[in-house]
Protein backbone atom coordinates (compact mmCIF):
# COMPACT_ATOMS: atom_id res chain seq x y z
CA UNK A 1 0.00 0.00 0.00
CA UNK A 2 2.75 2.44 1.01
CA UNK A 3 4.64 1.59 -2.20
CA UNK A 4 1.51 2.44 -4.20
CA UNK A 5 1.14 5.74 -2.35
CA UNK A 6 4.79 6.55 -3.01
CA UNK A 7 4.35 5.76 -6.70
CA UNK A 8 1.28 8.00 -6.86
CA UNK A 9 3.15 10.80 -5.11
CA UNK A 10 6.11 10.39 -7.49
CA UNK A 11 3.78 10.51 -10.48
CA UNK A 12 2.09 13.67 -9.19
CA UNK A 13 5.48 15.23 -8.49
CA UNK A 14 6.70 14.38 -11.98
CA UNK A 15 3.57 15.89 -13.53
CA UNK A 16 4.16 19.17 -11.73
CA UNK A 17 7.89 19.36 -12.33
CA UNK A 18 9.39 20.31 -15.65
CA UNK A 19 12.98 21.00 -16.46
CA UNK A 20 15.19 21.91 -19.37
CA UNK A 21 18.70 23.01 -20.08
CA UNK A 22 21.68 22.79 -22.33
CA UNK A 23 25.44 22.59 -22.50
CA UNK A 24 26.87 24.84 -25.17
CA UNK A 25 30.40 25.36 -26.38
CA UNK A 26 31.20 28.26 -28.67
CA UNK A 27 34.30 29.25 -30.56
CA UNK A 28 34.86 32.78 -31.90
CA UNK A 29 37.57 33.14 -34.52
CA UNK A 30 38.87 36.63 -35.36
CA UNK A 31 41.10 36.87 -38.44
CA UNK A 32 42.39 40.33 -37.47
CA UNK A 33 44.17 41.33 -34.28
CA UNK A 34 42.69 44.31 -32.44
CA UNK A 35 44.88 47.08 -31.01
CA UNK A 36 44.56 45.88 -27.40
CA UNK A 37 43.75 42.25 -28.04
CA UNK A 38 45.87 40.02 -30.22
CA UNK A 39 43.88 36.84 -29.55
CA UNK A 40 42.44 35.25 -32.68
CA UNK A 41 40.31 32.64 -30.97
CA UNK A 42 38.05 32.65 -27.92
CA UNK A 43 36.37 29.53 -26.63
CA UNK A 44 33.57 29.44 -24.09
CA UNK A 45 31.29 26.89 -22.45
CA UNK A 46 27.92 27.47 -20.82
CA UNK A 47 25.79 25.02 -18.86
CA UNK A 48 22.24 26.20 -18.18
CA UNK A 49 19.65 24.35 -16.12
CA UNK A 50 16.10 25.52 -15.40
CA UNK A 51 13.41 23.76 -13.37
CA UNK A 52 9.76 24.67 -12.82
CA UNK A 53 7.43 23.32 -10.19
CA UNK A 54 3.69 23.92 -10.24
CA UNK A 55 1.14 23.83 -7.43
CA UNK A 56 -2.50 24.93 -7.73
CA UNK A 57 -1.97 28.70 -7.62
CA UNK A 58 1.76 28.80 -7.13
CA UNK A 59 4.63 28.21 -9.51
CA UNK A 60 8.31 28.11 -8.68
CA UNK A 61 11.12 28.65 -11.15
CA UNK A 62 14.81 28.09 -10.57
CA UNK A 63 17.70 28.24 -12.98
CA UNK A 64 21.45 28.36 -12.86
CA UNK A 65 24.23 29.18 -15.32
CA UNK A 66 27.73 27.73 -15.03
CA UNK A 67 30.29 29.00 -17.50
CA UNK A 68 33.94 29.32 -18.33
CA UNK A 69 36.05 30.57 -21.25
CA UNK A 70 39.60 30.81 -22.52
CA UNK A 71 39.84 34.61 -22.54
CA UNK A 72 39.23 35.71 -18.94
CA UNK A 73 35.75 36.93 -19.82
CA UNK A 74 34.49 34.74 -16.99
CA UNK A 75 35.78 35.45 -13.52
CA UNK A 76 37.70 32.68 -11.79
CA UNK A 77 36.19 33.75 -8.46
CA UNK A 78 32.76 32.77 -7.19
CA UNK A 79 31.19 36.21 -6.99
CA UNK A 80 28.07 37.58 -8.67
CA UNK A 81 26.00 34.52 -7.87
CA UNK A 82 22.85 36.63 -7.26
CA UNK A 83 23.60 40.35 -7.77
CA UNK A 84 25.09 40.40 -11.23
CA UNK A 85 27.25 43.54 -11.11
CA UNK A 86 30.67 42.06 -11.70
CA UNK A 87 33.04 43.23 -14.42
CA UNK A 88 33.52 39.73 -15.80
CA UNK A 89 30.83 37.11 -16.20
CA UNK A 90 30.34 35.14 -12.98
CA UNK A 91 31.34 31.45 -13.27
CA UNK A 92 28.16 30.52 -11.43
CA UNK A 93 25.04 32.67 -11.45
CA UNK A 94 21.40 32.25 -10.58
CA UNK A 95 19.37 32.89 -13.69
CA UNK A 96 15.92 32.23 -12.26
CA UNK A 97 14.68 31.95 -8.72
CA UNK A 98 11.15 33.16 -8.43
CA UNK A 99 7.72 32.34 -7.09
CA UNK A 100 4.57 33.16 -9.06
CA UNK A 101 1.14 33.41 -7.48
CA UNK A 102 -1.96 33.44 -9.67
CA UNK A 103 -5.52 34.12 -8.65
CA UNK A 104 -8.06 34.98 -11.32
CA UNK A 105 -6.86 38.02 -13.20
CA UNK A 106 -3.94 38.62 -10.84
CA UNK A 107 -0.43 37.26 -11.28
CA UNK A 108 2.41 38.20 -8.95
CA UNK A 109 5.98 37.05 -9.57
CA UNK A 110 8.79 37.87 -7.18
CA UNK A 111 12.45 36.96 -7.35
CA UNK A 112 15.09 36.71 -10.03
CA UNK A 113 13.48 36.73 -13.45
CA UNK A 114 13.67 37.95 -17.03
CA UNK A 115 11.36 40.82 -17.93
CA UNK A 116 10.85 41.84 -21.53
CA UNK A 117 8.84 44.81 -22.72
CA UNK A 118 8.18 46.08 -26.21
CA UNK A 119 7.12 44.58 -29.51
CA UNK A 120 9.85 45.52 -31.93
CA UNK A 121 12.66 43.13 -32.78
CA UNK A 122 15.33 45.26 -34.35
CA UNK A 123 15.65 47.55 -31.32
CA UNK A 124 13.40 47.76 -28.26
CA UNK A 125 13.53 51.23 -26.67
CA UNK A 126 10.91 50.40 -24.01
CA UNK A 127 12.66 47.21 -22.84
CA UNK A 128 13.95 48.93 -19.67
CA UNK A 129 14.13 45.94 -17.34
CA UNK A 130 16.32 43.94 -19.71
CA UNK A 131 20.03 44.61 -19.18
CA UNK A 132 22.37 42.71 -21.46
CA UNK A 133 25.77 41.14 -21.48
CA UNK A 134 27.72 43.20 -24.03
CA UNK A 135 31.14 41.57 -23.60
CA UNK A 136 30.59 40.78 -27.27
CA UNK A 137 28.74 43.84 -28.55
CA UNK A 138 27.07 42.16 -31.53
CA UNK A 139 26.28 38.86 -29.81
CA UNK A 140 24.70 39.89 -26.51
CA UNK A 141 22.48 38.01 -24.09
CA UNK A 142 19.76 39.29 -21.74
CA UNK A 143 20.46 39.29 -18.02
CA UNK A 144 17.88 38.50 -15.35
CA UNK A 145 16.99 41.05 -12.69
CA UNK A 146 15.65 40.88 -9.15
CA UNK A 147 12.14 42.27 -9.15
CA UNK A 148 8.54 41.96 -8.08
CA UNK A 149 6.08 41.99 -10.96
CA UNK A 150 2.33 42.38 -10.65
CA UNK A 151 0.15 41.65 -13.64
CA UNK A 152 -3.57 42.31 -13.55
CA UNK A 153 -6.04 42.03 -16.35
CA UNK A 154 -7.85 40.06 -18.97
CA UNK A 155 -6.61 38.90 -22.32
CA UNK A 156 -7.67 42.25 -23.81
CA UNK A 157 -6.30 44.69 -21.24
CA UNK A 158 -3.41 44.14 -18.89
CA UNK A 159 -1.66 46.41 -16.44
CA UNK A 160 1.80 45.41 -15.33
CA UNK A 161 3.72 46.96 -12.44
CA UNK A 162 7.39 46.19 -11.86
CA UNK A 163 9.50 47.10 -8.86
CA UNK A 164 13.18 46.30 -8.75
CA UNK A 165 15.02 47.18 -5.53
CA UNK A 166 18.43 47.45 -7.16
CA UNK A 167 19.82 48.13 -10.62
CA UNK A 168 21.31 45.26 -12.57
CA UNK A 169 23.65 46.96 -15.04
CA UNK A 170 24.44 45.74 -18.50
CA UNK A 171 27.87 44.15 -18.70
CA UNK A 172 30.15 46.36 -20.77
CA UNK A 173 33.17 45.24 -22.82
CA UNK A 174 36.34 44.47 -20.88
CA UNK A 175 38.87 47.27 -21.33
CA UNK A 176 41.73 44.97 -22.30
CA UNK A 177 39.71 43.16 -24.95
CA UNK A 178 38.74 43.81 -28.55
CA UNK A 179 35.18 45.05 -27.94
CA UNK A 180 36.46 48.05 -25.94
CA UNK A 181 38.06 50.49 -28.40
CA UNK A 182 40.25 52.89 -26.45
CA UNK A 183 42.15 55.97 -27.68
CA UNK A 184 45.64 55.00 -28.82
CA UNK A 185 48.55 55.99 -26.60
CA UNK A 186 46.49 56.83 -23.50
CA UNK A 187 46.81 54.34 -20.64
CA UNK A 188 43.40 53.84 -19.07
CA UNK A 189 42.71 52.69 -15.56
CA UNK A 190 39.24 51.62 -14.57
CA UNK A 191 38.02 52.70 -11.14
CA UNK A 192 35.34 50.92 -9.13
CA UNK A 193 31.97 51.72 -10.73
CA UNK A 194 29.56 54.12 -9.06
CA UNK A 195 26.37 52.08 -8.82
CA UNK A 196 23.17 53.85 -7.80
CA UNK A 197 21.52 52.73 -4.59
CA UNK A 198 17.89 53.39 -5.38
CA UNK A 199 15.14 51.21 -6.76
CA UNK A 200 13.46 51.17 -10.20
CA UNK A 201 9.80 51.22 -10.97
CA UNK A 202 7.84 50.65 -14.17
CA UNK A 203 4.26 50.40 -15.34
CA UNK A 204 2.87 49.14 -18.62
CA UNK A 205 -0.63 48.93 -20.00
CA UNK A 206 -1.11 46.51 -22.86
CA UNK A 207 -4.16 46.20 -25.08
CA UNK A 208 -4.84 43.26 -27.38
CA UNK A 209 -7.50 44.11 -29.93
CA UNK A 210 -9.12 42.15 -32.71
CA UNK A 211 -6.43 43.15 -35.18
CA UNK A 212 -3.99 45.47 -33.43
CA UNK A 213 -2.04 45.41 -30.20
CA UNK A 214 -0.59 48.43 -28.44
CA UNK A 215 1.03 49.38 -25.14
CA UNK A 216 1.96 52.42 -23.12
CA UNK A 217 4.84 52.21 -20.70
CA UNK A 218 6.54 54.27 -18.04
CA UNK A 219 9.85 53.71 -16.30
CA UNK A 220 11.59 55.57 -13.50
CA UNK A 221 14.99 54.39 -12.36
CA UNK A 222 18.44 54.24 -13.84
CA UNK A 223 19.94 53.56 -17.22
CA UNK A 224 21.47 50.08 -17.22
CA UNK A 225 24.08 51.38 -19.70
CA UNK A 226 26.81 53.55 -18.23
CA UNK A 227 28.25 57.00 -18.77
CA UNK A 228 31.95 57.48 -18.02
CA UNK A 229 33.68 59.92 -15.67
CA UNK A 230 37.18 60.47 -17.01
CA UNK A 231 39.84 62.10 -14.87
CA UNK A 232 43.43 62.61 -15.94
CA UNK A 233 45.79 61.12 -13.36
CA UNK A 234 48.99 63.13 -13.85
CA UNK A 235 50.94 61.35 -11.16
CA UNK A 236 50.39 57.98 -12.82
CA UNK A 237 50.29 59.41 -16.38
CA UNK A 238 46.99 57.75 -17.15
CA UNK A 239 43.29 58.43 -17.46
CA UNK A 240 41.09 57.15 -14.66
CA UNK A 241 37.73 56.00 -15.93
CA UNK A 242 34.71 55.35 -13.77
CA UNK A 243 31.34 53.98 -14.89
CA UNK A 244 28.20 55.53 -13.46
CA UNK A 245 24.55 54.95 -14.18
CA UNK A 246 22.47 58.11 -14.55
CA UNK A 247 18.90 58.49 -13.36
CA UNK A 248 16.45 57.86 -16.18
CA UNK A 249 12.76 58.37 -16.78
CA UNK A 250 11.09 56.88 -19.83
CA UNK A 251 7.70 57.44 -21.45
CA UNK A 252 7.12 54.89 -24.18
CA UNK A 253 4.68 53.10 -26.39
CA UNK A 254 4.57 50.30 -28.90
CA UNK A 255 2.09 48.93 -31.40
CA UNK A 256 1.67 46.09 -33.87
CA UNK A 257 -0.85 46.41 -36.71
CA UNK A 258 -1.34 44.14 -39.72
CA UNK A 259 -1.28 46.24 -42.89
CA UNK A 260 -1.92 44.35 -46.11
CA UNK A 261 0.58 41.55 -46.51
CA UNK A 262 2.82 42.64 -43.60
CA UNK A 263 2.67 43.41 -39.91
CA UNK A 264 3.78 46.93 -39.09
CA UNK A 265 5.40 47.33 -35.70
CA UNK A 266 6.43 50.56 -34.08
CA UNK A 267 8.03 51.35 -30.77
CA UNK A 268 9.14 54.72 -29.40
CA UNK A 269 10.35 56.08 -26.10
CA UNK A 270 11.32 59.47 -24.75
CA UNK A 271 14.16 59.41 -22.23
CA UNK A 272 14.89 62.20 -19.81
CA UNK A 273 17.18 62.44 -16.80
CA UNK A 274 17.77 64.60 -13.76
CA UNK A 275 21.47 63.94 -14.22
CA UNK A 276 23.11 67.01 -15.84
CA UNK A 277 25.44 64.80 -17.91
CA UNK A 278 22.81 62.54 -19.44
CA UNK A 279 21.15 63.35 -22.78
CA UNK A 280 17.43 63.69 -23.28
CA UNK A 281 16.42 61.85 -26.42
CA UNK A 282 13.80 59.93 -28.34
CA UNK A 283 14.49 56.45 -29.70
CA UNK A 284 12.07 54.96 -32.19
CA UNK A 285 11.75 51.94 -34.41
CA UNK A 286 9.49 51.23 -37.34
CA UNK A 287 9.62 47.74 -38.81
CA UNK A 288 7.69 45.43 -41.10
CA UNK A 289 7.40 41.71 -40.56
CA UNK A 290 6.35 38.94 -42.89
CA UNK A 291 6.45 35.17 -42.96
CA UNK A 292 5.84 33.43 -46.23
CA UNK A 293 6.52 29.83 -47.06
CA UNK A 294 9.83 28.95 -45.50
CA UNK A 295 10.96 32.57 -45.21
CA UNK A 296 10.62 35.02 -42.37
CA UNK A 297 11.60 38.65 -42.72
CA UNK A 298 11.89 41.59 -40.34
CA UNK A 299 13.19 44.89 -41.61
CA UNK A 300 13.01 48.43 -40.43
CA UNK A 301 14.60 51.64 -39.41
CA UNK A 302 15.81 52.63 -35.96
CA UNK A 303 15.93 56.37 -35.40
CA UNK A 304 17.05 58.75 -32.72
CA UNK A 305 16.34 62.42 -31.98
CA UNK A 306 18.43 64.08 -29.27
CA UNK A 307 16.45 66.81 -27.55
CA UNK A 308 19.20 67.82 -25.09
CA UNK A 309 22.76 66.91 -25.96
CA UNK A 310 25.15 66.97 -22.97
CA UNK A 311 28.08 65.51 -24.95
CA UNK A 312 28.90 62.93 -22.31
CA UNK A 313 30.94 59.85 -23.05
CA UNK A 314 29.10 56.61 -22.52
CA UNK A 315 28.58 53.11 -23.81
CA UNK A 316 25.20 52.54 -25.40
CA UNK A 317 24.80 49.93 -28.12
CA UNK A 318 21.07 50.69 -27.99
CA UNK A 319 21.74 54.22 -29.23
CA UNK A 320 24.74 53.05 -31.23
CA UNK A 321 22.53 50.88 -33.40
CA UNK A 322 20.09 53.75 -33.98
CA UNK A 323 20.00 55.80 -37.18
CA UNK A 324 20.37 52.53 -39.03
CA UNK A 325 18.50 50.26 -41.36
CA UNK A 326 18.16 46.90 -39.66
CA UNK A 327 16.99 43.64 -41.24
CA UNK A 328 16.72 39.99 -40.31
CA UNK A 329 15.76 37.11 -42.56
CA UNK A 330 15.38 33.44 -41.80
CA UNK A 331 14.93 30.45 -44.09
CA UNK A 332 13.87 26.99 -42.96
CA UNK A 333 15.50 24.43 -45.23
CA UNK A 334 13.79 21.49 -43.55
CA UNK A 335 12.77 20.34 -40.11
CA UNK A 336 16.41 20.21 -38.94
CA UNK A 337 18.21 22.85 -40.95
CA UNK A 338 17.87 26.62 -41.17
CA UNK A 339 19.64 29.72 -42.39
CA UNK A 340 19.60 33.18 -40.82
CA UNK A 341 20.86 36.51 -42.06
CA UNK A 342 20.96 39.83 -40.28
CA UNK A 343 22.36 43.21 -41.10
CA UNK A 344 22.65 46.70 -39.64
CA UNK A 345 23.64 49.50 -42.00
CA UNK A 346 24.13 53.05 -40.74
CA UNK A 347 22.10 55.57 -42.70
CA UNK A 348 25.24 57.61 -43.45
CA UNK A 349 27.02 54.47 -44.62
CA UNK A 350 29.73 54.85 -41.97
CA UNK A 351 29.16 51.46 -40.40
CA UNK A 352 27.90 48.07 -41.43
CA UNK A 353 27.35 44.78 -39.65
CA UNK A 354 26.26 41.66 -41.51
CA UNK A 355 25.92 38.10 -40.23
CA UNK A 356 25.02 34.81 -41.87
CA UNK A 357 24.37 31.63 -39.92
CA UNK A 358 23.68 28.00 -40.78
CA UNK A 359 22.19 25.75 -38.13
CA UNK A 360 21.55 22.01 -38.13
CA UNK A 361 20.06 19.68 -35.56
CA UNK A 362 21.35 16.14 -35.14
CA UNK A 363 18.95 13.74 -33.47
CA UNK A 364 16.85 14.89 -30.55
CA UNK A 365 19.55 16.70 -28.56
CA UNK A 366 22.39 18.10 -30.66
CA UNK A 367 22.57 21.27 -32.72
CA UNK A 368 25.57 22.77 -34.51
CA UNK A 369 25.62 26.34 -35.74
CA UNK A 370 28.25 27.94 -37.96
CA UNK A 371 28.26 31.59 -38.89
CA UNK A 372 30.31 34.54 -39.96
CA UNK A 373 29.94 38.20 -39.05
CA UNK A 374 31.38 41.10 -40.99
CA UNK A 375 32.00 44.51 -39.40
CA UNK A 376 33.20 47.44 -41.44
CA UNK A 377 33.11 51.21 -41.33
CA UNK A 378 34.58 54.47 -40.18
CA UNK A 379 36.52 54.26 -36.89
CA UNK A 380 34.46 57.18 -35.53
CA UNK A 381 31.21 55.30 -36.06
CA UNK A 382 29.78 53.07 -33.33
CA UNK A 383 29.75 50.04 -35.65
CA UNK A 384 32.78 51.12 -37.65
CA UNK A 385 34.98 51.22 -34.52
CA UNK A 386 34.70 47.43 -34.42
CA UNK A 387 35.96 47.02 -38.01
CA UNK A 388 38.75 44.70 -36.81
CA UNK A 389 36.26 42.38 -35.10
CA UNK A 390 34.80 40.50 -38.05
CA UNK A 391 34.65 36.88 -36.98
CA UNK A 392 33.49 33.34 -37.54
CA UNK A 393 31.41 31.49 -34.93
CA UNK A 394 31.04 27.80 -34.31
CA UNK A 395 28.56 26.58 -31.68
CA UNK A 396 27.73 23.10 -30.53
CA UNK A 397 24.80 22.66 -28.17
CA UNK A 398 23.44 19.64 -26.34
CA UNK A 399 19.91 20.32 -25.08
CA UNK A 400 18.09 18.20 -22.54
Amino acid at each position, binding site marked *: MSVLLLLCAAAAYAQNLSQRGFLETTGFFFPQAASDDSAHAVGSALFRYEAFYKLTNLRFAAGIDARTDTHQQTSRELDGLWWDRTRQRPPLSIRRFSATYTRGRLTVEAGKQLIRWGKADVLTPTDRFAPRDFLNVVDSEFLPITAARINYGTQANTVELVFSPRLTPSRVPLLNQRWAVLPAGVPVHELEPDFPGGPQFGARWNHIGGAAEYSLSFYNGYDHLPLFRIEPNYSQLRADVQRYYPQMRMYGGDAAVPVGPVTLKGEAAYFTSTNPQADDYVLWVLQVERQAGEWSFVGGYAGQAITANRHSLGFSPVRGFAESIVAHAGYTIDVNRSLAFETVVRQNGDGVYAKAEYSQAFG*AHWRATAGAALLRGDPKDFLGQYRLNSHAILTLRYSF
Partner: protein
Amino acid sequence: MNKVIIGLLAIVPLIAQDARQIVEESQRRGRANSQRYEGVLEVVGADSKVTKKSWQSVRLGSYGNSKAVIRFTAPAEVKGVALLVVNHPDRSSDQWMWTPAIGRDRRIALQDRSTRFFGTDFSFEDLEERDAQQYEYKLSGEEAVAGAPCWRIEARPRESKTSQYTLSRIWIRKDNYVPAQYENFIKDQPVRRLEQKDIQNVQGIWTARTLEMTDLRRKSRTILRLEKLEYNVPVKEDEFTVQALRREQ
Protein backbone atom coordinates in the same frame (compact mmCIF):
# COMPACT_ATOMS: atom_id res chain seq x y z
CA MET B 1 -41.86 -5.48 -43.98
CA ASN B 2 -42.66 -2.79 -41.43
CA LYS B 3 -39.06 -2.88 -40.30
CA VAL B 4 -37.90 -2.29 -43.86
CA ILE B 5 -40.21 0.72 -44.21
CA ILE B 6 -39.04 2.15 -40.90
CA GLY B 7 -35.45 1.57 -41.99
CA LEU B 8 -36.06 3.31 -45.30
CA LEU B 9 -37.76 6.21 -43.53
CA ALA B 10 -34.71 6.54 -41.27
CA ILE B 11 -32.40 6.75 -44.28
CA VAL B 12 -34.48 9.39 -46.09
CA PRO B 13 -33.39 12.30 -43.81
CA LEU B 14 -29.75 11.31 -44.32
CA ILE B 15 -30.11 11.36 -48.08
CA ALA B 16 -31.92 14.65 -47.82
CA GLN B 17 -29.17 16.13 -45.69
CA ASP B 18 -27.28 18.90 -47.35
CA ALA B 19 -23.58 19.41 -46.97
CA ARG B 20 -23.91 21.98 -44.19
CA GLN B 21 -26.11 19.68 -42.14
CA ILE B 22 -23.56 16.89 -42.45
CA VAL B 23 -20.71 19.14 -41.33
CA GLU B 24 -22.78 20.57 -38.47
CA GLU B 25 -23.77 17.09 -37.36
CA SER B 26 -20.13 16.02 -37.52
CA GLN B 27 -19.14 18.97 -35.34
CA ARG B 28 -22.09 18.40 -32.95
CA ARG B 29 -21.00 14.81 -32.38
CA GLY B 30 -17.42 15.92 -31.69
CA ARG B 31 -18.35 18.55 -29.13
CA ALA B 32 -16.88 18.45 -25.63
CA ASN B 33 -16.42 21.04 -22.92
CA SER B 34 -12.70 20.46 -23.03
CA GLN B 35 -10.04 18.16 -24.39
CA ARG B 36 -6.51 17.24 -23.37
CA TYR B 37 -3.98 15.00 -25.09
CA GLU B 38 -0.29 14.38 -25.50
CA GLY B 39 0.69 14.56 -29.14
CA VAL B 40 3.52 12.44 -30.48
CA LEU B 41 4.71 13.69 -33.85
CA GLU B 42 6.86 12.11 -36.51
CA VAL B 43 7.97 14.45 -39.25
CA VAL B 44 9.00 12.40 -42.28
CA GLY B 45 11.01 14.48 -44.75
CA ALA B 46 11.08 14.07 -48.51
CA ASP B 47 14.30 12.09 -47.96
CA SER B 48 12.41 9.75 -45.55
CA LYS B 49 14.43 11.05 -42.59
CA VAL B 50 12.26 10.96 -39.45
CA THR B 51 12.30 13.65 -36.76
CA LYS B 52 10.30 13.15 -33.56
CA LYS B 53 8.57 15.88 -31.62
CA SER B 54 5.92 15.96 -28.94
CA TRP B 55 3.50 18.47 -27.50
CA GLN B 56 0.74 18.76 -24.95
CA SER B 57 -2.57 20.17 -26.07
CA VAL B 58 -5.36 21.54 -23.92
CA ARG B 59 -8.60 22.91 -25.35
CA LEU B 60 -11.51 24.65 -23.72
CA GLY B 61 -14.81 24.70 -25.62
CA SER B 62 -15.59 23.44 -29.08
CA TYR B 63 -15.97 24.55 -32.65
CA GLY B 64 -16.28 28.26 -33.17
CA ASN B 65 -15.89 29.29 -29.58
CA SER B 66 -12.87 27.55 -28.21
CA LYS B 67 -9.39 28.26 -26.95
CA ALA B 68 -6.41 25.95 -27.13
CA VAL B 69 -2.81 25.88 -25.95
CA ILE B 70 -0.23 23.66 -27.62
CA ARG B 71 3.06 23.40 -25.75
CA PHE B 72 6.11 21.50 -27.04
CA THR B 73 7.65 18.98 -24.66
CA ALA B 74 10.29 17.58 -27.04
CA PRO B 75 12.81 17.86 -28.60
CA ALA B 76 14.69 19.52 -25.79
CA GLU B 77 15.64 22.63 -27.71
CA VAL B 78 11.99 23.65 -28.26
CA LYS B 79 10.68 22.51 -24.88
CA GLY B 80 8.32 25.19 -23.56
CA VAL B 81 7.54 26.81 -26.93
CA ALA B 82 3.79 27.34 -26.89
CA LEU B 83 0.97 28.43 -29.17
CA LEU B 84 -2.29 29.96 -27.97
CA VAL B 85 -5.20 29.71 -30.41
CA VAL B 86 -8.39 31.64 -29.69
CA ASN B 87 -11.11 30.58 -32.14
CA HIS B 88 -14.02 32.87 -32.97
CA PRO B 89 -17.38 31.94 -34.51
CA ASP B 90 -17.46 34.92 -36.88
CA ARG B 91 -13.87 35.41 -37.98
CA SER B 92 -10.43 33.84 -38.17
CA SER B 93 -8.73 32.81 -34.97
CA ASP B 94 -6.19 34.84 -33.02
CA GLN B 95 -2.86 33.14 -32.40
CA TRP B 96 0.13 33.97 -30.23
CA MET B 97 3.40 32.11 -29.88
CA TRP B 98 5.58 32.14 -26.77
CA THR B 99 9.29 31.42 -27.17
CA PRO B 100 10.93 30.97 -23.75
CA ALA B 101 14.49 31.28 -25.11
CA ILE B 102 13.89 34.94 -25.97
CA GLY B 103 11.21 35.61 -23.36
CA ARG B 104 8.82 37.13 -25.89
CA ASP B 105 5.33 36.43 -27.13
CA ARG B 106 4.45 37.21 -30.73
CA ARG B 107 1.12 37.44 -32.44
CA ILE B 108 0.91 35.28 -35.54
CA ALA B 109 -0.58 37.63 -38.10
CA LEU B 110 -3.33 36.33 -40.38
CA GLN B 111 -1.16 36.72 -43.45
CA ASP B 112 1.57 34.59 -41.84
CA ARG B 113 -0.63 31.58 -41.04
CA SER B 114 0.44 29.61 -44.10
CA THR B 115 3.89 29.16 -42.53
CA ARG B 116 4.72 25.72 -41.22
CA PHE B 117 4.38 25.29 -37.46
CA PHE B 118 7.83 24.62 -36.02
CA GLY B 119 9.07 22.37 -38.78
CA THR B 120 5.97 20.18 -38.90
CA ASP B 121 3.75 19.89 -41.97
CA PHE B 122 0.90 21.61 -40.13
CA SER B 123 0.63 25.29 -40.91
CA PHE B 124 -0.49 27.71 -38.19
CA GLU B 125 -3.89 27.83 -39.88
CA ASP B 126 -4.23 24.04 -39.71
CA LEU B 127 -4.10 24.27 -35.91
CA GLU B 128 -7.26 26.33 -35.65
CA GLU B 129 -10.74 24.84 -35.53
CA ARG B 130 -12.94 25.12 -38.59
CA ASP B 131 -16.30 26.41 -37.52
CA ALA B 132 -19.07 25.38 -39.92
CA GLN B 133 -20.42 28.95 -40.14
CA GLN B 134 -17.24 30.25 -41.74
CA TYR B 135 -17.52 28.14 -44.91
CA GLU B 136 -19.87 27.58 -47.82
CA TYR B 137 -20.46 23.87 -48.41
CA LYS B 138 -21.39 21.77 -51.40
CA LEU B 139 -21.99 18.02 -51.45
CA SER B 140 -19.90 16.87 -54.40
CA GLY B 141 -20.35 13.11 -54.20
CA GLU B 142 -19.78 9.98 -52.23
CA GLU B 143 -16.53 8.08 -52.00
CA ALA B 144 -14.93 5.52 -49.73
CA VAL B 145 -11.83 6.38 -47.72
CA ALA B 146 -9.88 3.40 -46.38
CA GLY B 147 -12.90 1.23 -47.09
CA ALA B 148 -15.35 3.44 -45.18
CA PRO B 149 -18.19 5.05 -47.17
CA CYS B 150 -17.95 8.85 -46.97
CA TRP B 151 -19.71 11.97 -48.16
CA ARG B 152 -17.38 14.18 -50.18
CA ILE B 153 -18.00 17.84 -49.42
CA GLU B 154 -16.40 20.96 -50.86
CA ALA B 155 -15.83 23.85 -48.45
CA ARG B 156 -14.96 27.37 -49.54
CA PRO B 157 -14.14 30.05 -46.95
CA ARG B 158 -16.65 32.87 -46.60
CA GLU B 159 -15.44 36.45 -47.01
CA SER B 160 -15.17 36.94 -43.24
CA LYS B 161 -12.72 34.05 -43.07
CA THR B 162 -9.13 34.68 -44.04
CA SER B 163 -7.60 31.46 -45.29
CA GLN B 164 -4.61 30.39 -47.33
CA TYR B 165 -6.86 27.70 -48.83
CA THR B 166 -9.29 28.59 -51.57
CA LEU B 167 -11.00 25.19 -51.37
CA SER B 168 -11.05 22.20 -49.04
CA ARG B 169 -12.48 18.80 -49.87
CA ILE B 170 -13.71 16.94 -46.82
CA TRP B 171 -14.59 13.27 -46.67
CA ILE B 172 -16.95 12.58 -43.75
CA ARG B 173 -17.64 9.00 -42.76
CA LYS B 174 -21.27 7.98 -43.00
CA ASP B 175 -21.11 5.57 -40.06
CA ASN B 176 -19.88 7.92 -37.34
CA TYR B 177 -19.66 11.37 -38.97
CA VAL B 178 -15.92 11.61 -38.31
CA PRO B 179 -13.99 13.46 -41.05
CA ALA B 180 -11.75 10.83 -42.61
CA GLN B 181 -9.79 13.12 -44.90
CA TYR B 182 -9.26 16.75 -45.83
CA GLU B 183 -7.64 17.90 -49.05
CA ASN B 184 -6.74 21.58 -49.13
CA PHE B 185 -6.28 23.57 -52.32
CA ILE B 186 -4.68 26.87 -53.24
CA LYS B 187 -5.97 28.09 -56.60
CA ASP B 188 -7.18 24.62 -57.58
CA GLN B 189 -3.85 23.00 -56.76
CA PRO B 190 -3.89 20.49 -53.87
CA VAL B 191 -1.26 21.56 -51.32
CA ARG B 192 -1.98 19.66 -48.09
CA ARG B 193 -3.82 16.43 -47.29
CA LEU B 194 -4.89 15.47 -43.79
CA GLU B 195 -5.84 11.84 -43.24
CA GLN B 196 -7.63 11.01 -39.98
CA LYS B 197 -7.16 7.38 -38.99
CA ASP B 198 -7.41 5.00 -36.07
CA ILE B 199 -10.92 6.15 -35.15
CA GLN B 200 -11.92 5.18 -31.63
CA ASN B 201 -14.77 5.96 -29.28
CA VAL B 202 -13.32 7.99 -26.43
CA GLN B 203 -15.82 8.86 -23.68
CA GLY B 204 -18.64 8.63 -26.21
CA ILE B 205 -16.95 10.76 -28.86
CA TRP B 206 -15.68 9.11 -32.03
CA THR B 207 -12.18 10.49 -32.43
CA ALA B 208 -9.35 9.98 -34.91
CA ARG B 209 -6.30 9.09 -32.82
CA THR B 210 -3.85 9.37 -35.74
CA LEU B 211 -3.65 12.40 -37.99
CA GLU B 212 -1.36 12.34 -40.98
CA MET B 213 -0.70 15.67 -42.71
CA THR B 214 1.07 15.52 -46.06
CA ASP B 215 2.59 18.59 -47.66
CA LEU B 216 2.02 17.72 -51.29
CA ARG B 217 4.46 20.33 -52.57
CA ARG B 218 7.37 19.47 -50.28
CA LYS B 219 6.50 15.77 -50.31
CA SER B 220 6.96 15.55 -46.56
CA ARG B 221 4.44 14.39 -43.97
CA THR B 222 3.79 14.65 -40.26
CA ILE B 223 2.08 11.91 -38.30
CA LEU B 224 0.42 13.09 -35.09
CA ARG B 225 -0.71 10.45 -32.60
CA LEU B 226 -3.07 11.54 -29.84
CA GLU B 227 -2.08 9.82 -26.60
CA LYS B 228 -3.62 10.11 -23.13
CA LEU B 229 -6.65 11.68 -24.78
CA GLU B 230 -9.37 12.84 -22.40
CA TYR B 231 -12.54 14.86 -22.87
CA ASN B 232 -14.34 17.09 -20.38
CA VAL B 233 -11.32 17.51 -18.12
CA PRO B 234 -11.35 20.42 -15.64
CA VAL B 235 -9.52 23.41 -17.17
CA LYS B 236 -9.69 27.07 -16.21
CA GLU B 237 -10.50 29.93 -18.56
CA ASP B 238 -7.47 31.91 -17.36
CA GLU B 239 -5.10 29.22 -18.68
CA PHE B 240 -5.87 30.51 -22.19
CA THR B 241 -4.38 34.00 -22.20
CA VAL B 242 -1.10 35.46 -23.42
CA GLN B 243 -0.18 36.06 -19.76
CA ALA B 244 -0.73 32.36 -19.02
CA LEU B 245 1.52 31.37 -21.94
CA ARG B 246 4.35 33.29 -20.29
CA ARG B 247 3.49 32.15 -16.78
CA GLU B 248 3.44 28.43 -17.58
CA GLN B 249 6.95 28.49 -19.13
